[in-house]
Each structure stands twice: as C-alpha cells, then as structure tokens.
C-alpha cells in the first residue's frame, strides 16, 4: 500500500546472508581473459594453521597464483566497543588487555592516555618512565613473536618460533611479577601505574636487556642471512608507500615501505622526546623489509630500555589525586594514541559527564593494516600469501574486537 517498489518491502529488505560465503561468490567472478576457467577456489581458514587465529582467506587460484583474495573475519567479535559504552572508564581497562593480547601493556597505555586527556590528568615522571620501559618490553615481545611466527609460516619447523618463545617467556615472567598476570596485565591507571616496580624487578629488566642483544645476534645469524629466507621474502608482497599511506597503514609495515612515520617522534608523547633513538626505514616494502625493520626496531628498543632504566627518577608512580573509580570526566571528546608495536593504537572517547563513556571507539592497527592484504597478495603464490599475512602481523582479538 505504501510501497509500490517491491524491493523496498520489509521482507525484501531483510536480506538473507549466506554464512558460508558472506556474500562473496568466487564462482561468479569472471575468469581472467586468457587463463580460462581453470580457477581453483580454496578457503584458507578459519582453522588453518597459519592464519594466526580464527581468520579466513577465500583465495581464488590460477595454478598456484592468487588471482582473488577475500579476507573473512569476525569469528572473534566480542562487541568490545559497545561493551566499553556500558562500562565505567576503569572497567574498560581490563577489556583493552583482550584486544591485542600480545601487547596488553601498550593497549593499556593508549587507553590511559585517552582518559587522561579527557579528564585532564597529569602523570608523574616516574610513571612515564615505567610506561616507556613496559612499552618497549612489549615491543620486544611482539616483534620477537612475530619473527618466530613469520619464520614458522616460511616453513621453519619450529626452531625460530621456539627461540622466540623462550625470550617471550622471560618478558612475560617480568610482566607477571609486576602486574600479577602474564598476558592480561591491566597495569596502567589514569594518571600513572598501578604498582611501583621494585628495585629487584628493575634489576631483572636490566639483566634481560643485557642478554637481548646477544639473543638477537643469534636469531639473526640463524635467519637473516639465510638464502632461502631471502628468496622467499625479498620482493614478495611489495607495499608501495603511496598505497600504504592512502590505506592508513601504520607501524613497522608503513616504515618498511619507506615512510619514516613514528608516533613516538611525531607526537612525542610520554618521555620519548628526552630519549635518543632512531627510526629504521625500509626501501622496498616487501616481507623481508618488514621483518628487518622489526629486528632493527628491537635493537632501538634495547637502547631505549637502557636509557629509560638509567634515567628512571624516584617518586610516586600514580597521581594520588587522580580518581580511578567513579571517574566522571567533563563532557567532551578525546583521542589518545601511541605507537604500539603493530602501529598506531588509538582510543577515541566521548564523554557526556556520566561514569560511562558515551562513545568508545578503538583504532586497531591490525585491522587497518589488514585492509591491504589483497593488494599485497595478488599475483603471488599461495605460499607467499601465507607469509604476507604473517608479515602484516595481525592479532585477531584486535581485528575483530
């Protein structure tokens, strides 16, 4: 009666989504002009061993060459952002641990920065240094794991991965002794940190930092000069700088493409302006560059950790006046971001003056970096697609939220 157009009728508007294809039908993809219909569509995932979680790639292959690639995700979606709007500001802090579950310390920090901006809180000097220490430890942790996983994707039978995980456990032990939890640290607070690190803990960090350089040397000796690794990764998955910038890619992936953009330099948050470090940049933007940029970043992190440990001042780690529970910031909005190990991790908060944020939004680096996956994979073989995905460095907790 109201709708002459049948397509707009309610029954037609509720479109049935086929869960199997998610609207993507490769068989309807017209075949390439010369190659004919010899296309093979395979589904890599969601429980494929090298998708690093429940991620799925619908790949159309011509022989072994990727002709189309469609990422499918959402299997781990937990309604993170909506939950943030129903939870108090402090209540969201442990949830941020679960975003990128490798890097809970940096997630905490980015969220804390957003809330501190919103509520106008200041952070004691000692806490800033502790935050830098923890963020750089997290960077070491993340990049080490990534290198291990990437080499696993290249077909190393576990050796680099086990080496990487040995070092990861040492860092996780430090996190556990400081925060009480290995991976879900929930350590940062608005206006500082939850616990003051003891001298013994700091000594343990110094010890770890001292042995990390030799570990990296060993790791690189095993992998970096290996001809097979070079053959597998050099020239594979090239990401042009223009595409990287236009797609919003950040972090080591962007820097591997030759853009020296690092929020630690650009924003100069925390005490980074007082510390001396360099930003490694790749020239080719391929998988090898992404790997090497991360290795070089780890070496910079070691130097950053040394400087931060040496310069660590005394004093409190938490602003005693900062209100944690029942925090009600003035109405307004704030965006807090830091250079996480995977790229720009940001939190956008809108406050309406109540105890819960009106709007809570995450800018996840994994998700944004993942959007260029198809562009990187086209024309490469399926074996390359796997290592390209590995080099993007995603964590599904953050992609799906």
């Amino acid at each position, binding site marked *: 009666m109201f709708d002459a157009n049948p397509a707009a009728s309610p029954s037609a508007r509720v479109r049935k989504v086929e869960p199997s294809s998610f609207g993507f039908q490769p068989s309807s993809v017209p075949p390439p002009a010369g190659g004919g219909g*010899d296309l093979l569509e395979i589904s890599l995932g969601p429980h494929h061993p090298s998708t690093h979680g429940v991620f799925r790639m619908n790949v159309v292959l011509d022989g072994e060459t990727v002709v189309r690639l469609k990422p499918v995700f959402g299997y781990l979606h937990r309604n993170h952002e909506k939950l943030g709007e129903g939870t108090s500001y402090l209540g969201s802090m442990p949830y941020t641990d679960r975003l990128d579950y490798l890097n809970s310390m940096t997630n905490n920090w980015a969220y804390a920065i957003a809330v501190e901006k919103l509520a106008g809180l200041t952070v004691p000097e000692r806490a800033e240094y502790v935050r830098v220490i923890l963020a750089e430890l997290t960077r070491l942790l993340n990049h080490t794991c990534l290198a291990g996983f990437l080499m696993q994707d290249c077909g190393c039978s576990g050796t680099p991965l086990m080496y990487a995980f040995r070092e990861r456990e040492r860092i996780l032990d430090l996190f556990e002794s400081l925060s009480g939890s290995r991976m879900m640290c929930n350590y940062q607070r608005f206006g500082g940190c939850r616990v003051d690190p003891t001298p013994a803990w700091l000594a343990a960090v110094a010890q770890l930092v001292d042995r990390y350089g030799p570990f990296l040397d060993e790791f690189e000796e095993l992998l970096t000069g290996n001809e097979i690794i070079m053959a597998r990764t050099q020239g594979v998955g090239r990401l042009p700088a223009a595409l990287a910038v236009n797609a919003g890619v950040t972090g080591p992936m962007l820097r591997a493409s030759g853009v020296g953009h690092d929020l630690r330099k650009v924003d100069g948050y925390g005490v980074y302006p007082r510390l001396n470090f360099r930003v490694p940049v790749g020239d080719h933007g391929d998988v090898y560059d992404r790997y090497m940029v991360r290795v070089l970043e780890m070496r910079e992190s070691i130097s950053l950790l040394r400087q931060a440990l040496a310069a660590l001042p005394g004093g409190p780690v938490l602003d005693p006046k900062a209100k944690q529970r029942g925090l009600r910031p003035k109405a307004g909005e704030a965006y807090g971001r830091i250079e996480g190990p995977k790229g720009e991790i940001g939190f956008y908060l809108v406050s309406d003056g109540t105890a819960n944020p009106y709007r809570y939004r995450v800018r996840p680096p994994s998700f944004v970096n993942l959007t260029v996956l198809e562009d990187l994979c086209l024309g490469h073989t399926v074996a390359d697609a796997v290592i390209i995905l590995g080099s993007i460095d995603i964590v599904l907790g953050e992609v799906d939220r």
Partner: protein
Amino acid sequence: MSLAFLALALVCVVTASAAMISRNLIHSALLLVLTWIGLAGLYLWAGADFVGFSQAIVYVGGVSMVVLFAVLLTRRQRDEPLVLIPEAGVGRVVAGLAATFWVAALLVPAMVVAPLVQRAGPGPTLTVKRIGELLAGPHLVAVLVVGVILTVSLIGALYLAAPVTAEDQPEWDNGGTGRDRGNQEEPS
C-alpha cells in the same frame, strides 16, 4: 611357459583393457601404469633386466607423471569432481571396434600358426657391460641420433606448451600491484 608369465600377461591385458575402457582419465593413467609395470615384469621374466628397469624408470617414473600432469592441467574446472571423458558417438564406437576386430582377426591367427624358428634351452644372458659396449660401439651413431631427437623434441614440447602470445597471458599478470586505491600521490 610359466605361471609367472601367465600372471603378468593377465595383469597386462586386464589393466590395459580397463584403462582403455575407463571413463575417468586419472584411473586410465594409473591403470596403464600397472600395465607398464607388468610389461617391465615380463622383460625381467625374459631375462632382459636392464630393459625392464629402464621401462620402469622411463614409463612409471617419467611418462606417467607427464600424462597425469597433462590430465590435471586440462580439466575444465579445477575442482571438477571427476575427470570424465565425453562419450564417443555410436558410429565411432562401431567403426573403431570393427576396424580393431578386423586387425585382430588378421593378426591373431597369424601369430598362432606362424612357423617360428625357436631356440631351445635357457635364454641368452646380457650383462650391463655388454649393453654398454653395444651402445658405445656398433650403435653409437644411433645413440647420438636419439640424443638429438630427444633434445629437439623436448625443445619443441617446451615451445608448444609455453604460453607465448599475449592472449595467453593471464589478466592479473599486468605487471602492476593490483587495483589502485584512491589517488596515488607520493606522501609528503
């Protein structure tokens, strides 16, 4: 005349007929591999070890691979459930079988009744060394010619199978990195 010969002959005939009847090309190729293995067994039974092993290496290890590769490369759809061969028309079947029957009717009686001079007693022995001497001596020219033929035929096969024309080039292989995204300005 032995059981081994009969068994091998049976294997050869059964697998060869099954291979030629089968509608599934992969089954055909694999059954024919069994025929080739049976023939290699027959050569061994006859005492021609070297030829038997050569037959196994070349046919089972080489030709069968090429055949299977060709079968896989020439499917219409890569995930087609079966590699089926279209049925031949009735006329073709009748004519083909009639011609075959005619040939068989000529050959089989001839083979059965032909008076052949035969050697009694154990078969000849042929060592690898002797084969080598024969190949490098009286048959040297033939070896060289076969070498040239093989090389030429392989180059020809490469030329035939390699995609050379532009229309054979797959669409995605345009030298670029795929689709564009927005304006491709250099970042400042």
